[in-house]
């Protein structure tokens, strides 16, 4: 293994500034990232404490590394991941979108798919770390380019149930509370800031 891994790097925070109503993109080389109502808002980190700043940064980096551009939208009127990702796919110039919930559950969607279907789903939020988010971004970008990426390996842990099942339910309920019915998706711009962790 050699080198030590980065010890607690300066933690980044992110604010999502609203730019206006989300519009349909025309660039075929873009991926839209759609975040849920409470993402980087009521909540600041996923169920396993991955900062939302890091989630976004890694998704964006995965997309950029593939030479694809990204836009971020916030969906306000639902906390249903399939609906969020599907809405974003309709807005995406390439038809590819990544939806992500505050607790970390993530999905890659495509505009022609039925809402309840998806290209890749990462249902086990406790098992998603920065590296997985990077790979999700990268895969989404590769789909946008018409390439066939290897699906990000899904992990499984039998003991995730006793540890995380109830917290996941709680986080979901909180997220549902943040829903603003009837509000259309908005385009947002991330402002990352460095801060001292702990």
């Amino acid at each position: 293994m050699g080198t030590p891994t980065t010890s607690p790097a300066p933690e980044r925070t992110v604010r999502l500034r609203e730019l206006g109503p989300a519009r349909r993109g025309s660039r075929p080389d873009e991926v839209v990232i759609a975040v849920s109502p409470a993402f980087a808002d009521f909540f600041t980190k996923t169920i396993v404490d991955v900062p939302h700043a890091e989630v976004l940064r890694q998704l964006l980096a995965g997309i950029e590394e593939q030479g694809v551009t990204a836009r971020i939208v916030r969906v306000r009127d639902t906390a249903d991941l399939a609906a969020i990702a599907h809405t974003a796919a309709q807005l995406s110039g390439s038809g590819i979108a990544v939806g992500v919930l505050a607790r970390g559950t993530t999905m890659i969607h495509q505009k022609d798919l039925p809402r309840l279907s998806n290209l890749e789903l990462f249902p086990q939020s406790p098992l998603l770390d920065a590296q997985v988010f990077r790979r999700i971004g990268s895969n989404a970008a590769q789909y946008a380019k018409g390439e066939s990426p290897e699906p990000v390996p899904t992990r499984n842990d039998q003991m995730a149930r006793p540890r995380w099942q109830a917290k996941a339910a709680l986080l979901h309920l909180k997220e549902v509370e943040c829903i603003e019915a009837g509000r259309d998706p908005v385009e947002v711009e991330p402002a990352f800031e460095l801060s001292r962790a702990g």
Partner: protein
Amino acid sequence: MPDRARLVVGVDIGNSTTEACLAAVAPDRTVSYLGTDLTRTTGVKGTPDNTDGVLTAVRGALRRAGRAAAELDAVLLNEATPVISGLAMETITETIITESTMIGHNPATPGGQGLGVGTTVSLTELDEIDPGPPVVCVVPHGWDFEDIASTVNAAVGRGVDVVAAVLAGDDAVLVANRLTRPVPVVDEVAAVEKVPLGMLAAVEVAAAGYTIRTLSNTYGLATVFGLDPDQTRHVSPVARALTGNRSAVVVRTPSGDVTDRRIPVGTLELRGSGKTLRVDLATGAEEIMDAVARAQPLEDAHGEPGTHVGGMLAQVRDTMADVVGQDGEEAGSPVEIAINDVLAVDTFVPAEVRGGLAGEMHLENAVALAAMVSTSRSRMRSVAERVAEELGVATLIGGVEGKMAVRGALTTPGVDRPVAVLDLGGGSTDAAELDREGRDTAVHVAGAGELVTKLIDSELALDDREVAENIKRSPLAKVESFFHVRHEDGTVQFFDEPLPSHVFARVVTLAPEGPTPIPTRHGLDHVRQIRREAKRRVFVVNAVRALRQVAAGGNLRTLDFVVLLGGSALDFEIPEMIADALAGYGIVCGTGNVLGTEGPRNAVASGLVAAHAAAAP
């Protein structure tokens, strides 16, 4: 001479299907075919378990023809010569990099472009070095792309001449996009900590769609590193190994090297026609097949014990012993099994390079061997006895399969003697010939559908026989959207219903059940080329080889008609590949249509009837 038509049924017990052909043989020996049937073979071919399948097929044919079992005069069984085949594969070359001198793994997304030559320095020491000669920055694991970029930018700002970077993570584009002064960046170097520091190194990245020009050129390397002719000779393998890459790193160390080594795998010993020939497996398929041809008819083959070849043949023998022994009574010990034919095929196996820093893969040469034995013939007797008992009808064991098949093939419209058949099976390719005078010969050669599957599996590094089998059976397509695919011939097909999500953007096989994705990063053309090449190397080579053995004087031009039979004769491209190869010999070749209705099926069963009629008293 009987004064009425005799009702007979020919039955062919194959490895997977049992086929029956019911016919009336008139006193003048003319044959009227009445009906056929096909069922699954019960038990291992050539064992008493076959009886049930035979009865099912006979009854089925009778039912279709509206005849009763009591009317039957004879059941004709084939003399099944169970041919069992085995496969093995061995790599015969390996590539070794010493002293971590080269990185040529072709990451999907390198950053920047151009050539940078300088001394390797770790990123952790970049802020300590003074401006001076050019440096190549080596970035260990765990660094965030923004931190890498700002560290390099700070150094450049101080006047340090950073000309390239080598990264552990998949960050090249991210870093390159953030550099104040663009340089080539190579990433995903998993063992980056092994890159020697303080050495002269060259990093080259080509523009998207291009390949590197300098580091893949021996004289380019000589120029970059200022090599003398002797040293230049030494680095030529490095240049060759980097050919075709979009990016590469070469580090100059005192004795760094890339070698392409032959693995001593041992010799193959072939016994036949009164002589024993030895051939080094590492010499490749051509030499081996040459030796096999000289030892015809082959009596047995052995590998030098303790070598890879020994292991390969032992493995083949073990598989065959298992199959032969499956019935319990005939348990063959591996030693007793004599190998009657060997097919060697050159292939390649994508293998990880030893000493590589980034999991570099190299296509290593390998040899695949298919071997074949014929087993005991005695047990058809007991099948015949049981059938006779169940149906109360005389049951006769007819001629050798291949010879019967050729008679069945003659019922294909437009075929005449001299005719040869090629039965393209799973384990072996069988040929038989019937000349103008009615003399017949038959041979079995090793290698058929299963070997094709194995070649596809290993050459595409699939490690999944089911996927390989799918590739073999069906044409390819690329799913370009949820509503259309582009076929391998370039045509586009549209769909009204969206395709399933798991095939999106993938290269797929178009099986009848629907598109199935191939888990590979290779493009459609590459997969297609490997599929066709595997079929050519097995079926086309074997077609020619087997036909030579049955053709008079080994001369293919003595054959007029070749009829393709067996499961692989239904393949979407093998028949035309064989036909193309035989066209040069003036041979008419095509897929059989037995009785004008059965396609490449039922040849043996029909042939049994024909032979019986011809020989009738």
